[in-house]
């Protein structure tokens, strides 16, 4: 185990330049952590050899949980004993990533006591990530975390840690309470979060408006994106002020409207709300003058994912408008129906979006008991290969049929 910070001429190059340097961060941790010193050593080697030195994880975790820890081992344990095991611990973050200084210090104390002193704030799925833990320290870390009120997040084929935007806590555009829904779903699915039993991962992401700050439409199996049904709220005086301050409303606001539903005559902004597609552009540009309507809720979409296995998908509309109201039983019932179907019929490593591609959206809707709606498609089918499941016989409809 390295007893001093190793020479890292290649990595040192990345201490230069104006953007904050991750190499400086590792060196900060390396002052006290032999694990961080060995990480510097192996990373310098990777920079020379252009190849990584990590092996597959295998099964490693805390007692009673199948998820939350990702096993990671060095392929050069003799040279770098400090990181022979270097597991990742995922810790479920509070909704919206709000913290107090005390809460952060508590997390740091736990990690300084047991691990490498390196973290990701945060990982891509949203969790607090403790980077680099020995197997024998996992249970002690977990014990200290739970005593401090923190629990592990998801990993493997389970419900992954739900995440959300800052929502009504600090955004005037939030069309529903993203933090409350995220916390509720996280607590409701604790068992599914910690004990992988699905064909593959299942992610929930909650965005308060169509700007979708947590990228739910690209990254979540279930994307819940806030929207509204009534008219955009408008303050004409403030619109005028934007114009007086030099905003070209006709070109930059109305001209960018995908619904082509706006007109600015130099004095008054007119919106034909019937044709508004609720894209947010005009509201984004003039937040003091325009606001989402008052009849707010969410659009529920399903099925996005990154490429592996069958190619990347975006989520598509499942429920055009849903009023999220605690305890959200209607949504949970629907999710349970979908999970049951997917667990029964899905293949290993098949995300629900890929499952729908394979069995057909029409069949999927039939199985989960939802009516097909025109909002679910960009346009009706173009190809004429329709799989009718029934056909008429000559005597269909005759009286006396058995």
């Amino acid at each position, binding site marked *: 185990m390295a007893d001093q910070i190793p020479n890292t001429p290649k990595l040192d190059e*990345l201490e230069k330049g104006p953007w904050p340097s991750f190499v400086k961060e590792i060196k*900060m941790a390396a002052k006290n952590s032999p694990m961080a010193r060995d990480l510097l050593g192996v990373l310098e080697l990777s920079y020379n050899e252009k190849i990584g030195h990590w092996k597959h994880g295998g099964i490693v975790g805390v007692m009673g949980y199948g998820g939350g820890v990702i096993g990671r081992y060095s392929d050069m344990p003799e040279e770098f004993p400090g990181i022979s095991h270097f597991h990742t611990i995922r810790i479920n973050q509070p909704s919206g990533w*709000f913290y107090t200084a005390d809460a952060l210090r508590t997390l740091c104390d736990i990690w300084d006591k047991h691990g490498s002193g*390196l973290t*990701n704030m*945060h990982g891509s799925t949203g969790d607090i990530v403790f980077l680099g833990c020995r197997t024998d320290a996992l249970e002690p870390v977990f014990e200290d975390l*739970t005593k401090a009120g923190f629990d592990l997040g998801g990993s493997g084929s389970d419900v992954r840690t739900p995440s959300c935007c800052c929502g*009504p806590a600090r955004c005037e555009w939030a069309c529903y309470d993203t933090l409350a829904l995220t916390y509720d779903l996280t607590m409701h699915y604790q068992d599914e979060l910690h004990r992988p039993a699905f064909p593959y991962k299942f992610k929930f992401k909650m965005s308060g408006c169509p700007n979708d700050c947590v990228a739910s439409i690209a990254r979540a199996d279930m994307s819940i994106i806030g929207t509204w049904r009534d008219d955009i709220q408008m303050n004409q005086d403030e619109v005028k002020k934007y114009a007086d301050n030099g905003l070209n409303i006709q070109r*930059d606001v109305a001209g960018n409207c995908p619904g082509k539903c706006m007109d600015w005559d130099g004095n008054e902004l007119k919106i034909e709300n019937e044709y508004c597609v609720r894209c947010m552009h005009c509201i984004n540009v003039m937040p003091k003058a325009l606001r989402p309507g008052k009849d707010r809720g969410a659009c529920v979409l399903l099925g996005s994912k990154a490429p592996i296995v069958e190619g990347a998908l975006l989520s598509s509309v499942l429920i055009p408008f849903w009023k999220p109201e605690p305890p959200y039983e209607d949504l949970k019932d629907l999710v349970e129906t979908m999970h049951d179907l997917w667990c029964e019929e899905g293949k290993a490593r098949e995300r629900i979006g890929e499952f729908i591609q394979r069995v057909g959206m029409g069949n999927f809707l039939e199985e989960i008991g939802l009516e097909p709606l025109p909002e679910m498609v960009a346009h009706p089918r173009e190809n004429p290969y329709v799989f009718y499941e029934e056909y008429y016989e000559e005597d269909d409809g005759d009286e006396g049929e058995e």
Partner: protein
Amino acid sequence: MAERLTDIGPPKYDKFLPPIIKENYGKWLYHEVLKPGVMVHVSETGDKLFTVRVGSPRLVSTEKIRNYADLAEKYCDGYLRFTSRHNVEFLLTREENIDPLIADVKGLGHMVGGIGNSISSIVHTQGWIHCHSAATDASGVVKAVMDDLHEYFETMKLPGKLRIALACCLNMCGAVHCSDIAILGIHRRPPRIDHTKVKKMCEIPSVSASCPTAAIRPATVDGHPSVEVIEDRCMFCANCYTVCPAMPMNDPLNDGISIWVGGKVSNARHEPMFSKLAIPFIPNNPPRWPETTDAIKKIVELWAANANKYERMGEWIERIGWPKFFRMTGIKFQKEHIDDFKYAGLTFKRSTHLTY
């Protein structure tokens, strides 16, 4: 073991919300960007909450987190949050604290910005720091790219938002496929099969089933029950390696970076869209990946100089057309740019709407 706590879930968020947020929850009326990286939210109660957004390398030490905590205590009554793109946001109620906070943030070597028409921090994965299937590093490439583009973090002079993301292999743990610019690590040689280990470490039917192009089939090699790969069908996704450690893909000569452009997530103006391939392959060139950073800077500056106000990169390219994008960037259009996977024909040009 009686004391062992499980399934307690995360701390409830309201434990960590500052009083001003609790009092104005759901009551925010509007916001204004006061200067780069600084905004104010105004409530219908008249309360004002100031936010200072700070760029982060994402990989942070506990010492740095303690620095953040100290600043939050000094200027923000101990409250702060993180964003979905790994920035830190300090939440202030006293406007006079903004500039002293910014001075201290800069003293720590961090920048303030990333709001409005700017680049925000680059979302990225683990790379060589921590991942078994990485075809490139992540933190190092991101650091080099952000060193090049930091002025667009600290100002709002871009036409629209610029969202760059990096994933170190096709698994895309960062789901980068809908970014203005996606930096994607790729492998380009088929797996090296250790036939002595396949049977011990892997379940052969699962390995066969893992291949999206059915390139893997069971075979006995030198007396070992193993698999063979039809190399013509392999597109280097590494899904087989993920289910079977005896089929490593990593290779210094053939791993590298591809650049994808024109994706977006937001519904604003244009609907969400995938990024499309701009540069098929750039070799890894640590520590600063100069070919990658140069290519990205060139694309960003062309877009910045030519796009309309608020036009995201993909919206700009859609308006000018892909042929013009390739002409303007000088990127050579080649065979790899033409899709040859499922439903590739849907991506062919099927009109005479062309510019000359």
